């Protein structure tokens, strides 16, 4: 079995943590794409029924606020990986 000196092991752990943080940040892309798609559909809905504008804005606001949380989760994980390890 290969044994690493403490410095090398620490470097490997640090590199893995930074790599993990990078991978975690990929999760931030999804909500952006989803929100954009929802916005496009909302525009289509308003064009079809202009009277429902208020209702559409309300639904979209709530939806976007909640959809964003997955992106922030990934951000929190990434920052924890960067700063605590």
């Amino acid at each position, binding site marked *: 079995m290969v044994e690493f000196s403490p410095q090398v092991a620490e470097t490997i752990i640090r590199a893995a943590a930074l790599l993990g943080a990078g991978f975690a940040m990929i999760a931030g892309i999804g909500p952006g794409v989803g929100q954009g798609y929802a916005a496009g559909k*909302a525009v289509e809905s308003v064009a079809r029924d202009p009277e429902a504008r208020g209702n559409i804005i309300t639904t979209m*606001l709530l939806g976007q606020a909640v959809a964003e949380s997955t992106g922030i989760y990934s951000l929190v994980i990434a920052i924890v990986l960067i700063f605590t390890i």
Partner: protein
Amino acid sequence: MKEIQDPVKMQKEIIKKTYLISLFPIISSLIAGSFDVFLGFIFGLIISTLLLRIKYNNIRRALDMNMEKAEKFIRNRYFIEYALYFIVLFTSARNTRINFLAAAVGLFMMKFTVVLWSVIDLFKDTFQSKIDEYK
């Protein structure tokens, strides 16, 4: 929640409910004497309130555009907001006077409130339909 049709009224209601729920962790952190948790929570909460307001303005602007432009606009704005979230979390992670986890929870508080409110509405509807069925 679904009874409120006006977006401005809805926004005010969300903020009111979030602040009401947030009183519990704020008061407990003050009683416990952990000022860094208090500061972090307030920091996260204020930023999330401001970002909700920005989001509302963005949505209003996006609905006046055409479909492709709105899609692109909201996507770009999301990444700007994401950068703001990063700055907030980065600042709280670097600054020893601000608790990082409290700031993260403060940022999430508005989302938790919306989800909690929806769940309560769902339960209310279910019980109401059961009662109506029983009658």
